């Protein structure tokens, strides 16, 4: 494939797009792991939302 005299600009644009997509995917994945871990830790300590607590007679 011949990208012509301005190949550097084309490659740089696609590299920037790939980097942006990579950063967004990483951000979403790491954030999910962090929130899941925090939630699991709190629930393991017995802290639950009021809507989740069982009603006792």
């Amino acid at each position, binding site marked *: 494939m011949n990208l012509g005299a*301005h190949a550097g*600009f084309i490659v740089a644009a*696609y590299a920037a797009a790939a980097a942006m997509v990579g950063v967004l995917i990483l951000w979403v994945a790491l954030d*999910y792991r962090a929130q899941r871990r925090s939630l699991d830790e709190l629930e393991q300590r017995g*802290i639950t939302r009021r809507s989740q607590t069982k009603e006792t007679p």
Partner: protein
Amino acid sequence: MALIDLANPSRFLALAGRALPWLAFATALAFGVGLVMAFNAPDDYQQGATVKIMFLHVPAAWLGMFGWTLMSLSAFGTLVWRHPLADVAAKAAVPIGAAFTLLCLVTGSLWGRPMWGTSWVWDARLTSVLVLFLMYLGVMALYRTAEDPARGARAAAILTLVGAINLPIIKFSVDWWNTLHQPASVIRLGAPAIHPAILTPLLVMALAFLLLFLTLHLAAMRNEILRRRVRTLRLIQADESHA
């Protein structure tokens, strides 16, 4: 499932968990097809191979504006209907919309340098897109600085609706003012001004970017719901330790 059921965050989480793998697969497939078509598309008779930058630049610009449109609809949901997921949707869209707007600016500069002889001019189109990017950063800062999330949500919703005035300015800037940026060539009255050999890969890449946006947005909404649950549990924990 009725649409109103999605107002329940637990049901939304379950739906997101089921939809995300399919959306991610559809995104990867669309990008695979789109990139093959983009790199096999003919060169433009004037711009040569640099037209390949358009397959990134134009979808990024559309999605930068789509992000703010989505936030504006969510802002209505927050202010008028107080829908429980409206602010979640708005907040999750901010960094994604900002990233696409930044990509639009970067790829535009990389395209402009060889074609216009400059990476940047203060013309109406470029400046209004830069303003959109700065507004995204402003909303992001507002969310981060608000101590009370409910008040932060309302302030962000108002700022979003005020900022929506920039969307028609971006769209019509090339018609209202004399700009170095070219006029609209796809979304315009009459047929698109691009040859189908270049238009088709552009539309496939736009679909791929749209699917990417929706996948990331759904995942970011799921994260935001979990973050709010963590916050609630920490408040309960603090309450119990003071009792």
